[in-house]
């Protein structure tokens, strides 16, 4: 997003929050020229989570012949 120095002076907090929330960086313009950028820090855990999520979404679950609920109960009976 494009922001001006005037906007930064008035709304710095909301601009920073928006960058952190959306991940979209903010380019700061002064007298019509880009002079600085505010960007969100990359969160390694968030990236891993996103990759994991996408992989799980694409996954075709394997067919099994014993009920999952039974399997969980079996684990518990065995004293997990």
């Amino acid at each position, binding site marked *: 997003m494009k922001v001006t120095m005037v906007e930064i002076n008035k709304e710095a907090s909301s601009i920073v929050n928006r960058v952190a929330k959306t991940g979209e960086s903010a380019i700061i313009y002064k007298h019509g020229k880009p002079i600085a950028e505010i960007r969100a820090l990359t969160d390694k855990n968030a990236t*891993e*989570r996103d*990759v*994991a*999520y996408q992989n*799980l979404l694409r996954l075709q679950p394997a067919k*099994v012949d014993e009920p999952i*609920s039974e399997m*969980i109960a079996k684990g518990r009976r065995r004293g*997990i």
Partner: protein
Amino acid sequence: MAFSTLKQGERLDNSIVVDNSVMMRWLFQDGSDSDQVYAHKVLNAIGAQARQIIVPYIWVYESAFVVEYYSRRHKLAHDQCMDQLTWLFDLCTVVRGDQTPTNLYEFSHTQGVSAYDAAYAMLALGQSCPIATLDKMIIKASGRAKYSLFEP
């Protein structure tokens, strides 16, 4: 992936407890179609709502047990199982909360659930967040114990 030791009263934002009965249906299908549909609606909703999955520590053992059992029984590829458990682990925050044998006992005794179920339910209560579950006992106890069930 993260292990989290929460301080008393600390809450994680926009969280949801997901029971192993739901997560295992992201990896396996046993023919229970409505349960499968629910589990996948939960997965979709978690992405859409940017929810943070939290699980009690016992989930680590439960998930490994089920995957190991099915992998042996159905001769599933070792790498495939390792990948899938890693994805689940990456997606979750495993909470080492303030659960003790006595409060688990008390909750399970008064609510009529197993101590294993209590670990999930108490986490949802403590975090004031919903729980996604297909476990009949956890569902049954939700009204009495006043934790909310997640409806995707």
